[in-house]
Protein backbone atom coordinates (compact mmCIF):
# COMPACT_ATOMS: atom_id res chain seq x y z
CA UNK A 1 0.00 0.00 0.00
CA UNK A 2 2.83 2.37 0.75
CA UNK A 3 4.11 1.99 -2.78
CA UNK A 4 0.71 2.89 -4.20
CA UNK A 5 0.65 6.04 -2.10
CA UNK A 6 4.04 6.98 -3.49
CA UNK A 7 2.82 6.27 -7.00
CA UNK A 8 -0.29 8.39 -6.43
CA UNK A 9 1.95 11.22 -5.23
CA UNK A 10 4.09 10.98 -8.37
CA UNK A 11 0.98 11.08 -10.52
CA UNK A 12 -0.49 14.05 -8.64
CA UNK A 13 2.76 16.01 -8.81
CA UNK A 14 3.08 15.37 -12.54
CA UNK A 15 -0.26 17.09 -13.06
CA UNK A 16 0.61 20.25 -11.18
CA UNK A 17 0.60 22.42 -14.28
CA UNK A 18 -2.88 21.44 -15.35
CA UNK A 19 -4.34 21.43 -11.87
CA UNK A 20 -2.71 24.57 -10.54
CA UNK A 21 -5.74 26.78 -11.05
CA UNK A 22 -8.16 24.31 -9.56
CA UNK A 23 -5.97 23.73 -6.52
CA UNK A 24 -5.68 27.48 -6.11
CA UNK A 25 -9.44 27.93 -6.27
CA UNK A 26 -9.85 25.20 -3.66
CA UNK A 27 -7.32 27.02 -1.49
CA UNK A 28 -9.24 30.29 -1.73
CA UNK A 29 -12.55 28.64 -0.88
CA UNK A 30 -11.04 26.81 2.09
CA UNK A 31 -9.41 30.04 3.31
CA UNK A 32 -12.81 31.71 3.06
CA UNK A 33 -14.55 29.02 5.06
CA UNK A 34 -11.86 29.00 7.73
CA UNK A 35 -12.02 32.80 7.90
CA UNK A 36 -15.78 32.76 8.43
CA UNK A 37 -15.40 30.15 11.17
CA UNK A 38 -12.64 32.13 12.79
CA UNK A 39 -14.58 35.40 12.76
CA UNK A 40 -17.49 33.55 14.32
CA UNK A 41 -15.34 32.08 17.09
CA UNK A 42 -13.49 35.30 17.81
CA UNK A 43 -16.57 37.50 17.82
CA UNK A 44 -18.31 35.02 20.08
CA UNK A 45 -15.50 35.45 22.57
CA UNK A 46 -15.86 39.20 22.41
CA UNK A 47 -19.62 38.97 22.95
CA UNK A 48 -19.70 36.38 25.69
CA UNK A 49 -19.15 38.45 28.80
CA UNK A 50 -20.28 42.02 29.05
CA UNK A 51 -21.70 43.28 32.29
CA UNK A 52 -23.51 41.71 35.20
CA UNK A 53 -25.40 43.14 38.11
CA UNK A 54 -27.33 45.48 35.81
CA UNK A 55 -31.04 44.75 35.73
CA UNK A 56 -32.21 47.20 33.08
CA UNK A 57 -30.61 49.34 30.41
CA UNK A 58 -32.59 52.41 29.44
CA UNK A 59 -32.15 54.22 26.14
CA UNK A 60 -34.18 56.10 23.57
CA UNK A 61 -36.91 54.11 21.86
CA UNK A 62 -35.58 51.95 19.06
CA UNK A 63 -34.00 48.57 18.62
CA UNK A 64 -33.02 46.65 21.77
CA UNK A 65 -30.14 45.02 19.93
CA UNK A 66 -28.74 48.41 18.94
CA UNK A 67 -29.10 49.65 22.51
CA UNK A 68 -27.06 46.84 23.99
CA UNK A 69 -24.54 47.07 21.18
CA UNK A 70 -23.75 50.70 21.74
CA UNK A 71 -24.26 51.01 25.48
CA UNK A 72 -22.33 47.87 26.45
CA UNK A 73 -20.12 47.00 23.47
CA UNK A 74 -19.58 50.54 22.20
CA UNK A 75 -20.45 49.48 18.66
CA UNK A 76 -22.62 51.84 16.63
CA UNK A 77 -24.32 55.01 17.76
CA UNK A 78 -27.70 55.94 19.23
CA UNK A 79 -29.96 57.89 16.92
CA UNK A 80 -31.15 60.09 19.76
CA UNK A 81 -30.19 60.81 23.33
CA UNK A 82 -32.28 60.63 26.49
CA UNK A 83 -32.92 63.50 28.78
CA UNK A 84 -31.39 63.76 32.23
CA UNK A 85 -34.73 65.02 33.53
CA UNK A 86 -36.03 61.49 33.43
CA UNK A 87 -33.51 60.42 36.08
CA UNK A 88 -35.48 61.88 38.95
CA UNK A 89 -38.67 60.31 37.63
CA UNK A 90 -37.02 56.91 37.43
CA UNK A 91 -35.61 57.28 40.92
CA UNK A 92 -39.15 57.66 42.18
CA UNK A 93 -39.93 54.09 41.15
CA UNK A 94 -39.92 52.06 44.33
CA UNK A 95 -37.85 49.10 43.28
CA UNK A 96 -35.05 51.14 41.70
CA UNK A 97 -31.92 50.91 43.86
CA UNK A 98 -29.38 52.78 41.76
CA UNK A 99 -29.08 54.47 38.40
CA UNK A 100 -25.79 55.07 36.55
CA UNK A 101 -25.90 57.35 33.50
CA UNK A 102 -23.66 56.69 30.49
CA UNK A 103 -22.45 59.03 27.78
CA UNK A 104 -20.66 57.94 24.64
CA UNK A 105 -19.23 59.63 21.61
CA UNK A 106 -15.62 60.44 22.23
CA UNK A 107 -12.60 58.30 21.59
CA UNK A 108 -9.07 58.02 22.82
CA UNK A 109 -6.95 56.61 19.98
CA UNK A 110 -9.96 54.64 18.70
CA UNK A 111 -10.91 53.38 22.17
CA UNK A 112 -14.35 54.63 23.31
CA UNK A 113 -14.58 57.22 26.06
CA UNK A 114 -17.41 56.64 28.52
CA UNK A 115 -18.84 59.52 30.52
CA UNK A 116 -20.33 58.25 33.79
CA UNK A 117 -20.29 58.88 37.52
CA UNK A 118 -17.93 57.30 40.03
CA UNK A 119 -20.75 55.09 41.25
CA UNK A 120 -20.23 53.05 38.06
CA UNK A 121 -17.20 51.38 39.62
CA UNK A 122 -19.12 50.33 42.71
CA UNK A 123 -22.26 49.04 41.10
CA UNK A 124 -21.31 47.50 37.77
CA UNK A 125 -19.88 43.98 37.81
CA UNK A 126 -18.05 41.91 35.25
CA UNK A 127 -18.63 38.15 35.24
CA UNK A 128 -20.33 38.50 38.61
CA UNK A 129 -17.27 40.06 40.18
CA UNK A 130 -16.96 43.68 41.29
CA UNK A 131 -14.58 45.95 39.45
CA UNK A 132 -11.21 46.47 41.05
CA UNK A 133 -8.35 48.83 40.42
CA UNK A 134 -4.83 47.52 39.96
CA UNK A 135 -3.57 50.98 40.79
CA UNK A 136 -5.22 54.18 41.88
CA UNK A 137 -8.90 54.83 42.24
CA UNK A 138 -11.96 56.21 40.51
CA UNK A 139 -12.10 59.81 39.30
CA UNK A 140 -13.86 62.30 41.49
CA UNK A 141 -17.24 63.50 40.30
CA UNK A 142 -16.54 66.95 41.71
CA UNK A 143 -13.32 67.48 39.77
CA UNK A 144 -12.78 67.89 36.07
CA UNK A 145 -10.18 66.31 33.77
CA UNK A 146 -9.75 63.08 35.69
CA UNK A 147 -9.76 59.73 33.95
CA UNK A 148 -9.84 55.97 34.56
CA UNK A 149 -8.42 53.47 32.05
CA UNK A 150 -9.52 49.96 31.24
CA UNK A 151 -6.82 47.29 31.48
CA UNK A 152 -6.16 46.83 27.75
CA UNK A 153 -5.91 50.56 26.98
CA UNK A 154 -3.36 51.03 29.76
CA UNK A 155 -1.40 48.01 28.57
CA UNK A 156 -1.39 48.99 24.91
CA UNK A 157 -0.03 52.48 25.46
CA UNK A 158 1.88 51.69 28.64
CA UNK A 159 0.08 54.32 30.68
CA UNK A 160 0.55 54.81 34.42
CA UNK A 161 -1.07 56.77 37.20
CA UNK A 162 -0.61 60.55 36.89
CA UNK A 163 0.10 60.35 33.14
CA UNK A 164 -1.61 63.03 31.12
CA UNK A 165 -3.50 62.25 27.94
CA UNK A 166 -5.59 64.12 25.39
CA UNK A 167 -8.98 63.05 24.17
CA UNK A 168 -10.42 63.53 20.70
CA UNK A 169 -14.04 63.99 19.78
CA UNK A 170 -16.13 61.50 17.89
CA UNK A 171 -14.48 60.35 14.74
CA UNK A 172 -10.92 60.34 16.04
CA UNK A 173 -9.95 62.06 12.83
CA UNK A 174 -6.90 63.72 14.22
CA UNK A 175 -5.62 66.97 15.63
CA UNK A 176 -8.28 69.21 14.09
CA UNK A 177 -10.88 67.74 16.43
CA UNK A 178 -8.62 67.20 19.42
CA UNK A 179 -9.28 68.96 22.66
CA UNK A 180 -5.65 69.90 22.87
CA UNK A 181 -6.14 72.43 25.59
CA UNK A 182 -7.66 69.99 28.06
CA UNK A 183 -5.44 67.04 28.88
CA UNK A 184 -6.74 64.52 31.42
CA UNK A 185 -4.86 62.98 34.31
CA UNK A 186 -5.12 59.26 35.01
CA UNK A 187 -6.37 58.58 38.50
CA UNK A 188 -6.88 54.84 38.23
CA UNK A 189 -6.32 51.77 36.08
CA UNK A 190 -8.82 48.92 36.24
CA UNK A 191 -7.95 45.23 36.54
CA UNK A 192 -8.68 43.10 33.49
CA UNK A 193 -12.27 41.80 33.28
CA UNK A 194 -12.50 40.05 29.91
CA UNK A 195 -15.30 42.43 28.91
CA UNK A 196 -15.56 45.63 26.84
CA UNK A 197 -14.66 47.52 30.03
CA UNK A 198 -11.03 46.62 29.39
CA UNK A 199 -11.13 48.62 26.17
CA UNK A 200 -12.81 51.70 27.61
CA UNK A 201 -11.74 55.04 28.99
CA UNK A 202 -13.88 56.54 31.79
CA UNK A 203 -14.40 60.20 32.68
CA UNK A 204 -17.00 61.98 34.77
CA UNK A 205 -20.25 63.34 33.33
CA UNK A 206 -19.13 66.83 34.14
CA UNK A 207 -15.89 66.37 32.21
CA UNK A 208 -17.74 64.84 29.28
CA UNK A 209 -20.17 67.73 29.03
CA UNK A 210 -17.47 70.33 29.49
CA UNK A 211 -15.55 68.78 26.66
CA UNK A 212 -18.36 69.58 24.30
CA UNK A 213 -19.75 72.74 25.69
CA UNK A 214 -17.18 74.50 27.82
CA UNK A 215 -19.49 77.45 28.34
CA UNK A 216 -21.97 75.56 30.48
CA UNK A 217 -19.45 74.25 32.96
CA UNK A 218 -21.90 71.88 34.60
CA UNK A 219 -21.65 70.94 38.22
CA UNK A 220 -22.41 67.54 39.53
CA UNK A 221 -25.79 68.56 40.90
CA UNK A 222 -26.93 69.53 37.43
CA UNK A 223 -27.05 65.98 36.12
CA UNK A 224 -30.58 66.43 34.97
CA UNK A 225 -29.84 69.15 32.46
CA UNK A 226 -27.50 66.94 30.44
CA UNK A 227 -28.30 64.42 27.76
CA UNK A 228 -27.29 60.79 27.98
CA UNK A 229 -26.73 57.76 25.79
CA UNK A 230 -28.15 55.27 28.29
CA UNK A 231 -28.81 54.51 31.94
CA UNK A 232 -27.78 51.35 33.77
CA UNK A 233 -30.26 50.50 36.49
CA UNK A 234 -29.96 48.19 39.49
CA UNK A 235 -33.03 47.05 41.40
CA UNK A 236 -33.80 46.22 45.01
CA UNK A 237 -35.18 42.86 43.96
CA UNK A 238 -34.11 41.45 40.61
CA UNK A 239 -37.43 39.72 40.02
CA UNK A 240 -39.15 43.11 39.96
CA UNK A 241 -37.56 43.76 36.59
CA UNK A 242 -40.81 43.35 34.60
CA UNK A 243 -42.66 45.75 36.86
CA UNK A 244 -40.00 48.45 36.69
CA UNK A 245 -39.71 48.08 32.94
CA UNK A 246 -43.41 48.69 32.61
CA UNK A 247 -43.22 51.73 34.82
CA UNK A 248 -40.39 53.24 32.80
CA UNK A 249 -42.33 52.61 29.59
CA UNK A 250 -45.22 54.44 31.19
CA UNK A 251 -43.19 57.67 31.50
CA UNK A 252 -44.72 58.86 28.26
CA UNK A 253 -43.11 62.27 28.16
CA UNK A 254 -39.62 60.84 27.82
CA UNK A 255 -39.92 58.20 25.04
CA UNK A 256 -37.73 55.71 26.88
CA UNK A 257 -37.10 52.06 26.24
CA UNK A 258 -35.93 49.71 28.99
CA UNK A 259 -34.31 46.42 28.03
CA UNK A 260 -33.13 43.43 30.02
CA UNK A 261 -29.41 42.96 29.31
CA UNK A 262 -29.45 39.16 29.51
CA UNK A 263 -32.36 38.81 27.12
CA UNK A 264 -30.95 41.41 24.74
CA UNK A 265 -27.57 39.69 24.63
CA UNK A 266 -29.19 36.32 23.93
CA UNK A 267 -31.18 37.87 21.11
CA UNK A 268 -28.02 39.42 19.72
CA UNK A 269 -26.40 36.00 19.74
CA UNK A 270 -29.38 34.48 18.01
CA UNK A 271 -29.20 37.04 15.24
CA UNK A 272 -25.45 36.58 14.94
CA UNK A 273 -25.83 32.83 14.76
CA UNK A 274 -28.35 33.05 11.96
CA UNK A 275 -26.05 35.30 9.97
CA UNK A 276 -22.99 33.19 10.73
CA UNK A 277 -24.72 29.95 9.82
CA UNK A 278 -25.81 31.44 6.53
CA UNK A 279 -22.24 32.54 5.81
CA UNK A 280 -20.88 29.15 6.75
CA UNK A 281 -23.34 27.38 4.47
CA UNK A 282 -22.40 29.61 1.57
CA UNK A 283 -18.67 29.14 2.16
CA UNK A 284 -19.16 25.40 2.45
CA UNK A 285 -20.98 25.47 -0.86
CA UNK A 286 -18.05 27.22 -2.47
CA UNK A 287 -15.62 24.66 -1.05
CA UNK A 288 -17.77 21.84 -2.39
CA UNK A 289 -17.79 23.46 -5.79
CA UNK A 290 -14.01 23.56 -5.81
CA UNK A 291 -13.76 19.94 -4.79
CA UNK A 292 -16.16 19.04 -7.57
CA UNK A 293 -13.75 20.84 -9.87
CA UNK A 294 -10.94 18.55 -8.76
CA UNK A 295 -13.15 15.50 -9.20
CA UNK A 296 -14.22 16.47 -12.68
CA UNK A 297 -10.63 17.24 -13.69
CA UNK A 298 -9.65 13.75 -12.62
CA UNK A 299 -12.61 12.16 -14.36
CA UNK A 300 -11.55 13.85 -17.58
CA UNK A 301 -7.94 12.79 -17.12
CA UNK A 302 -9.03 9.19 -16.74
CA UNK A 303 -10.35 9.29 -20.30
CA UNK A 304 -6.76 9.39 -21.49
CA UNK A 305 -5.29 7.09 -18.86
CA UNK A 306 -6.70 3.83 -20.11
CA UNK A 307 -3.33 2.67 -21.38
CA UNK A 308 -1.68 3.55 -18.06
CA UNK A 309 -4.24 1.46 -16.21
CA UNK A 310 -3.80 -1.44 -18.65
CA UNK A 311 -0.05 -1.29 -18.12
CA UNK A 312 -0.56 -1.53 -14.38
CA UNK A 313 -2.94 -4.42 -14.90
CA UNK A 314 -0.40 -6.21 -17.06
CA UNK A 315 2.16 -5.89 -14.27
CA UNK A 316 -0.27 -7.63 -11.94
CA UNK A 317 -2.12 -4.79 -10.27
CA UNK A 318 -5.58 -5.69 -9.02
CA UNK A 319 -8.59 -3.52 -9.87
CA UNK A 320 -9.03 -2.78 -6.15
CA UNK A 321 -5.47 -1.51 -5.96
CA UNK A 322 -6.16 0.79 -8.87
CA UNK A 323 -9.31 1.98 -7.11
CA UNK A 324 -7.33 3.05 -4.06
CA UNK A 325 -4.57 4.48 -6.23
CA UNK A 326 -7.03 6.98 -7.71
CA UNK A 327 -8.55 7.66 -4.29
CA UNK A 328 -5.11 8.53 -2.94
CA UNK A 329 -4.35 10.72 -5.92
CA UNK A 330 -7.59 12.69 -5.68
CA UNK A 331 -7.19 12.94 -1.94
CA UNK A 332 -3.67 14.32 -2.20
CA UNK A 333 -4.73 16.99 -4.65
CA UNK A 334 -7.60 18.02 -2.38
CA UNK A 335 -5.24 17.98 0.60
CA UNK A 336 -2.85 20.29 -1.25
CA UNK A 337 -5.72 22.73 -1.82
CA UNK A 338 -6.77 22.58 1.82
CA UNK A 339 -3.28 23.08 3.21
CA UNK A 340 -2.66 26.00 0.84
CA UNK A 341 -5.99 27.43 1.92
CA UNK A 342 -5.07 27.32 5.57
CA UNK A 343 -1.65 28.83 4.86
CA UNK A 344 -3.27 31.55 2.74
CA UNK A 345 -5.56 32.46 5.62
CA UNK A 346 -2.70 32.66 8.11
CA UNK A 347 -0.73 34.92 5.78
CA UNK A 348 -3.75 37.19 5.30
CA UNK A 349 -4.40 37.37 9.03
CA UNK A 350 -0.81 38.25 9.76
CA UNK A 351 -1.12 41.20 7.44
CA UNK A 352 -4.62 42.41 8.35
CA UNK A 353 -4.97 41.59 12.05
CA UNK A 354 -4.27 45.12 13.22
CA UNK A 355 -6.67 46.73 10.79
CA UNK A 356 -9.41 44.38 11.92
CA UNK A 357 -8.85 45.34 15.54
CA UNK A 358 -9.01 49.05 14.74
CA UNK A 359 -12.10 48.89 12.55
CA UNK A 360 -14.22 46.41 14.48
CA UNK A 361 -12.68 46.16 17.93
CA UNK A 362 -12.44 42.43 17.51
CA UNK A 363 -9.20 40.56 17.87
CA UNK A 364 -8.59 37.99 15.15
CA UNK A 365 -5.22 36.37 15.26
CA UNK A 366 -3.28 33.94 13.19
CA UNK A 367 -1.96 30.85 14.93
CA UNK A 368 -2.23 27.10 15.14
CA UNK A 369 -5.56 25.70 13.97
CA UNK A 370 -8.23 25.87 16.65
CA UNK A 371 -10.44 22.95 17.50
CA UNK A 372 -13.11 24.27 15.15
CA UNK A 373 -10.54 24.75 12.39
CA UNK A 374 -9.42 21.14 12.71
CA UNK A 375 -13.02 19.98 12.68
CA UNK A 376 -13.74 21.99 9.54
CA UNK A 377 -10.61 20.73 7.78
CA UNK A 378 -11.39 17.13 8.69
CA UNK A 379 -14.94 17.54 7.41
CA UNK A 380 -13.72 18.94 4.10
CA UNK A 381 -11.18 16.12 3.82
CA UNK A 382 -13.90 13.57 4.46
CA UNK A 383 -16.09 15.10 1.78
CA UNK A 384 -13.13 15.11 -0.61
CA UNK A 385 -12.48 11.48 0.21
CA UNK A 386 -16.10 10.55 -0.42
CA UNK A 387 -16.16 12.47 -3.70
CA UNK A 388 -12.92 10.83 -4.82
CA UNK A 389 -14.77 7.52 -5.01
CA UNK A 390 -16.25 8.78 -8.27
CA UNK A 391 -13.09 8.80 -10.34
CA UNK A 392 -11.87 5.79 -8.38
CA UNK A 393 -14.90 3.77 -9.42
CA UNK A 394 -14.40 4.87 -13.00
CA UNK A 395 -10.78 3.68 -12.85
CA UNK A 396 -11.88 0.44 -11.22
CA UNK A 397 -14.32 -0.21 -14.04
CA UNK A 398 -11.68 0.57 -16.62
CA UNK A 399 -9.30 -1.83 -14.90
CA UNK A 400 -11.90 -4.53 -14.69
CA UNK A 401 -13.36 -4.42 -18.15
CA UNK A 402 -10.76 -3.12 -20.51
CA UNK A 403 -8.17 -5.78 -19.77
CA UNK A 404 -4.90 -5.33 -21.50
CA UNK A 405 -6.24 -3.66 -24.63
CA UNK A 406 -8.29 -0.58 -23.89
CA UNK A 407 -10.01 0.99 -26.89
CA UNK A 408 -8.28 4.31 -26.39
CA UNK A 409 -5.38 2.89 -28.31
Amino acid at each position, binding site marked *: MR*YWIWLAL*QSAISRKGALLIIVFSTAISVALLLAVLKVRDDTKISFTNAISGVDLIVGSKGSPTELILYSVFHIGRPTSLISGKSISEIQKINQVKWIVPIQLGDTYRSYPVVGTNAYFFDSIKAQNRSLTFTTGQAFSDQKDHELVLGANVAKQYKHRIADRITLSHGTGKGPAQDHADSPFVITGILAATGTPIDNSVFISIQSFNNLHDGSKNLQFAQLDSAQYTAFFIGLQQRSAVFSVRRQIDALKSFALMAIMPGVALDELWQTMEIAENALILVSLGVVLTSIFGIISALMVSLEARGREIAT*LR*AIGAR*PSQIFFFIIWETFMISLAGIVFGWALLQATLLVFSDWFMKEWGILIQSGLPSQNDVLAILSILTIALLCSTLPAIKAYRLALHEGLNPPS*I
Partner: protein
Amino acid sequence: MNTLKNIIEVKNLTFAWPTCKPLFNQFNLQIERHQKTYIAGASGSGKSTLLNLLAGVLDTAQGEIWFNNHAFHQLSRSQKDKIRGQEMGFIFQQFNLIPYLSTLDNIILPLNLFHSRKKSALEQFESTQDAAVYLMDRLSLPIQLLRQPVYQLSVGQQQRVAAARAFIGNPKIVIADEPSSALDWENQAQFLKLFLELGQSQNITLLLVSHDERLAPHFDQRINLPNGLER
Protein backbone atom coordinates in the same frame (compact mmCIF):
# COMPACT_ATOMS: atom_id res chain seq x y z
CA MET B 1 -0.50 -33.82 -21.20
CA ASN B 2 2.88 -33.39 -19.62
CA THR B 3 2.31 -30.30 -17.56
CA LEU B 4 5.89 -29.99 -16.52
CA LYS B 5 7.07 -29.72 -20.10
CA ASN B 6 4.49 -27.16 -21.18
CA ILE B 7 4.37 -23.80 -19.56
CA ILE B 8 0.99 -23.07 -21.12
CA GLU B 9 -1.73 -25.53 -21.95
CA VAL B 10 -5.12 -24.64 -23.31
CA LYS B 11 -7.68 -27.46 -23.56
CA ASN B 12 -11.03 -27.40 -25.26
CA LEU B 13 -11.43 -23.72 -24.85
CA THR B 14 -14.73 -22.40 -26.08
CA PHE B 15 -15.17 -18.66 -25.80
CA ALA B 16 -17.56 -16.17 -27.26
CA TRP B 17 -18.12 -12.50 -26.59
CA PRO B 18 -21.72 -11.75 -25.69
CA THR B 19 -23.98 -11.64 -28.74
CA CYS B 20 -21.12 -12.70 -31.00
CA LYS B 21 -20.20 -15.92 -32.75
CA PRO B 22 -17.79 -18.08 -30.73
CA LEU B 23 -14.23 -16.87 -31.15
CA PHE B 24 -12.72 -20.11 -29.94
CA ASN B 25 -14.39 -23.47 -30.34
CA GLN B 26 -12.76 -26.41 -28.64
CA PHE B 27 -9.46 -24.62 -29.03
CA ASN B 28 -6.23 -26.31 -27.93
CA LEU B 29 -2.78 -24.92 -27.41
CA GLN B 30 0.54 -26.05 -25.93
CA ILE B 31 3.59 -23.96 -25.38
CA GLU B 32 6.82 -25.60 -24.24
CA ARG B 33 9.07 -24.06 -21.64
CA HIS B 34 12.11 -22.15 -22.78
CA GLN B 35 10.82 -22.17 -26.34
CA LYS B 36 10.24 -19.24 -28.62
CA THR B 37 6.71 -19.26 -29.99
CA TYR B 38 5.27 -17.09 -32.74
CA ILE B 39 1.49 -16.58 -32.83
CA ALA B 40 0.24 -15.32 -36.14
CA GLY B 41 -2.85 -13.19 -35.83
CA ALA B 42 -4.43 -10.51 -37.88
CA SER B 43 -6.81 -8.16 -36.09
CA GLY B 44 -10.15 -9.74 -35.36
CA SER B 45 -8.57 -13.20 -35.18
CA GLY B 46 -8.97 -13.24 -31.46
CA LYS B 47 -5.35 -12.58 -30.51
CA SER B 48 -6.15 -9.88 -27.97
CA THR B 49 -8.83 -12.11 -26.46
CA LEU B 50 -6.37 -14.98 -26.25
CA LEU B 51 -3.78 -12.75 -24.62
CA ASN B 52 -6.29 -11.55 -22.06
CA LEU B 53 -7.25 -15.15 -21.36
CA LEU B 54 -3.66 -16.31 -20.99
CA ALA B 55 -2.88 -13.34 -18.76
CA GLY B 56 -5.75 -14.26 -16.50
CA VAL B 57 -7.47 -10.94 -17.02
CA LEU B 58 -10.41 -12.58 -18.77
CA ASP B 59 -12.33 -15.47 -17.31
CA THR B 60 -12.85 -18.65 -19.32
CA ALA B 61 -16.33 -19.83 -20.06
CA GLN B 62 -15.60 -23.40 -21.04
CA GLY B 63 -12.38 -25.32 -21.09
CA GLU B 64 -9.10 -25.31 -19.25
CA ILE B 65 -6.20 -22.91 -19.20
CA TRP B 66 -3.02 -24.00 -17.46
CA PHE B 67 -0.15 -21.64 -16.81
CA ASN B 68 2.97 -22.91 -15.10
CA ASN B 69 0.90 -25.66 -13.42
CA HIS B 70 -1.66 -23.15 -12.15
CA ALA B 71 -5.24 -23.97 -13.08
CA PHE B 72 -6.32 -20.56 -14.31
CA HIS B 73 -9.82 -21.79 -15.08
CA GLN B 74 -10.30 -22.48 -11.38
CA LEU B 75 -8.52 -19.56 -9.75
CA SER B 76 -10.04 -16.28 -8.64
CA ARG B 77 -9.22 -13.05 -10.41
CA SER B 78 -6.94 -11.76 -7.68
CA GLN B 79 -5.07 -15.05 -7.53
CA LYS B 80 -4.46 -14.83 -11.27
CA ASP B 81 -3.42 -11.17 -10.91
CA LYS B 82 -0.79 -12.24 -8.42
CA ILE B 83 0.55 -15.04 -10.60
CA ARG B 84 0.66 -12.74 -13.58
CA GLY B 85 2.58 -10.16 -11.58
CA GLN B 86 5.04 -12.68 -10.20
CA GLU B 87 5.64 -14.89 -13.20
CA MET B 88 4.82 -12.99 -16.40
CA GLY B 89 6.22 -10.05 -18.30
CA PHE B 90 4.35 -8.11 -20.99
CA ILE B 91 5.41 -5.86 -23.84
CA PHE B 92 2.76 -4.07 -25.90
CA GLN B 93 2.84 -2.23 -29.17
CA GLN B 94 3.19 1.19 -27.57
CA PHE B 95 2.45 3.27 -24.46
CA ASN B 96 3.81 0.59 -22.17
CA LEU B 97 5.20 2.89 -19.59
CA ILE B 98 3.99 5.07 -16.74
CA PRO B 99 4.61 8.55 -18.17
CA TYR B 100 5.26 10.36 -14.91
CA LEU B 101 7.94 7.94 -13.68
CA SER B 102 11.63 7.80 -14.51
CA THR B 103 13.26 5.06 -16.56
CA LEU B 104 14.51 3.36 -13.42
CA ASP B 105 11.15 3.52 -11.63
CA ASN B 106 9.42 2.10 -14.67
CA ILE B 107 11.79 -0.81 -14.98
CA ILE B 108 11.66 -1.83 -11.32
CA LEU B 109 7.88 -1.33 -11.06
CA PRO B 110 7.14 -5.10 -10.99
CA LEU B 111 9.71 -5.59 -8.23
CA ASN B 112 8.04 -2.97 -6.07
CA LEU B 113 4.66 -4.61 -6.45
CA PHE B 114 5.66 -8.22 -5.85
CA HIS B 115 8.00 -9.23 -3.12
CA SER B 116 8.90 -12.62 -4.61
CA ARG B 117 9.95 -11.03 -7.87
CA LYS B 118 12.11 -8.54 -5.99
CA LYS B 119 13.65 -11.38 -4.03
CA SER B 120 14.45 -13.20 -7.23
CA ALA B 121 16.19 -10.12 -8.66
CA LEU B 122 18.14 -9.59 -5.43
CA GLU B 123 19.47 -13.13 -5.60
CA GLN B 124 21.47 -12.06 -8.62
CA PHE B 125 22.10 -8.38 -7.91
CA GLU B 126 23.00 -6.18 -4.97
CA SER B 127 20.07 -3.86 -5.47
CA THR B 128 17.04 -3.42 -7.68
CA GLN B 129 18.87 -0.55 -9.35
CA ASP B 130 21.73 -2.88 -10.26
CA ALA B 131 19.26 -5.32 -11.78
CA ALA B 132 17.76 -2.52 -13.87
CA VAL B 133 21.15 -1.20 -14.97
CA TYR B 134 22.19 -4.67 -16.09
CA LEU B 135 19.15 -5.00 -18.34
CA MET B 136 19.58 -1.48 -19.67
CA ASP B 137 23.08 -2.44 -20.62
CA ARG B 138 21.92 -5.61 -22.35
CA LEU B 139 19.32 -3.59 -24.22
CA SER B 140 21.85 -0.92 -25.25
CA LEU B 141 20.16 1.83 -23.27
CA PRO B 142 22.58 4.60 -22.24
CA ILE B 143 23.02 4.79 -18.48
CA GLN B 144 22.28 8.56 -18.49
CA LEU B 145 18.65 7.76 -19.13
CA LEU B 146 18.32 6.10 -15.73
CA ARG B 147 16.68 8.99 -13.90
CA GLN B 148 15.14 10.74 -16.86
CA PRO B 149 11.35 10.89 -17.14
CA VAL B 150 10.42 8.30 -19.73
CA TYR B 151 8.35 10.61 -21.88
CA GLN B 152 11.60 12.32 -22.87
CA LEU B 153 12.94 9.13 -24.48
CA SER B 154 12.59 8.21 -28.16
CA VAL B 155 10.03 5.60 -29.18
CA GLY B 156 12.74 3.03 -29.77
CA GLN B 157 14.27 3.68 -26.37
CA GLN B 158 10.87 3.49 -24.69
CA GLN B 159 10.19 0.08 -26.15
CA ARG B 160 13.49 -1.20 -24.82
CA VAL B 161 12.67 0.18 -21.39
CA ALA B 162 9.38 -1.72 -21.61
CA ALA B 163 11.34 -4.83 -22.48
CA ALA B 164 13.64 -4.34 -19.49
CA ARG B 165 10.60 -4.10 -17.26
CA ALA B 166 9.14 -7.27 -18.73
CA PHE B 167 12.37 -9.23 -18.18
CA ILE B 168 13.36 -7.96 -14.74
CA GLY B 169 13.10 -10.31 -11.76
CA ASN B 170 13.18 -13.53 -13.76
CA PRO B 171 9.61 -14.12 -14.92
CA LYS B 172 8.72 -17.50 -16.33
CA ILE B 173 7.47 -16.07 -19.59
CA VAL B 174 7.58 -12.82 -21.53
CA ILE B 175 4.64 -12.18 -23.83
CA ALA B 176 5.02 -9.54 -26.51
CA ASP B 177 2.07 -8.20 -28.51
CA GLU B 178 3.26 -6.50 -31.71
CA PRO B 179 6.20 -5.02 -29.77
CA SER B 180 8.02 -3.52 -32.70
CA SER B 181 5.19 -2.47 -35.03
CA ALA B 182 5.46 1.14 -33.92
CA LEU B 183 9.17 1.28 -34.63
CA ASP B 184 10.96 1.99 -37.85
CA TRP B 185 12.64 -0.90 -39.66
CA GLU B 186 16.11 -0.40 -38.18
CA ASN B 187 14.78 -0.28 -34.64
CA GLN B 188 12.55 -3.23 -35.34
CA ALA B 189 15.46 -5.46 -36.26
CA GLN B 190 17.47 -4.35 -33.27
CA PHE B 191 14.58 -4.83 -30.89
CA LEU B 192 13.88 -8.35 -32.07
CA LYS B 193 17.52 -9.31 -31.81
CA LEU B 194 17.75 -8.07 -28.22
CA PHE B 195 14.44 -9.66 -27.32
CA LEU B 196 15.50 -13.06 -28.53
CA GLU B 197 18.96 -12.77 -26.99
CA LEU B 198 17.61 -11.89 -23.57
CA GLY B 199 15.15 -14.72 -23.65
CA GLN B 200 17.89 -17.09 -24.56
CA SER B 201 20.40 -16.01 -21.95
CA GLN B 202 17.86 -15.81 -19.11
CA ASN B 203 16.23 -19.04 -20.20
CA ILE B 204 12.81 -17.41 -20.32
CA THR B 205 9.94 -18.68 -22.49
CA LEU B 206 9.07 -16.15 -25.20
CA LEU B 207 5.72 -15.67 -26.81
CA LEU B 208 5.36 -13.16 -29.64
CA VAL B 209 2.06 -12.23 -31.25
CA SER B 210 2.25 -10.44 -34.59
CA HIS B 211 0.94 -10.21 -38.12
CA ASP B 212 4.39 -9.46 -39.49
CA GLU B 213 5.46 -12.70 -41.19
CA ARG B 214 9.05 -11.54 -41.49
CA LEU B 215 9.50 -12.25 -37.79
CA ALA B 216 8.20 -15.81 -37.90
CA PRO B 217 11.39 -17.62 -39.00
CA HIS B 218 13.20 -16.59 -35.82
CA PHE B 219 10.91 -18.71 -33.67
CA ASP B 220 10.85 -22.39 -32.76
CA GLN B 221 7.12 -22.81 -32.97
CA ARG B 222 4.32 -21.18 -34.90
CA ILE B 223 0.64 -21.01 -34.03
CA ASN B 224 -2.07 -19.73 -36.33
CA LEU B 225 -5.21 -18.18 -35.04
CA PRO B 226 -7.99 -19.08 -34.94
CA ASN B 227 -7.27 -22.42 -36.39
CA GLY B 228 -4.91 -23.61 -33.75
CA LEU B 229 -1.56 -25.29 -33.64
CA GLU B 230 0.42 -25.68 -36.78
CA ARG B 231 3.88 -26.95 -36.94
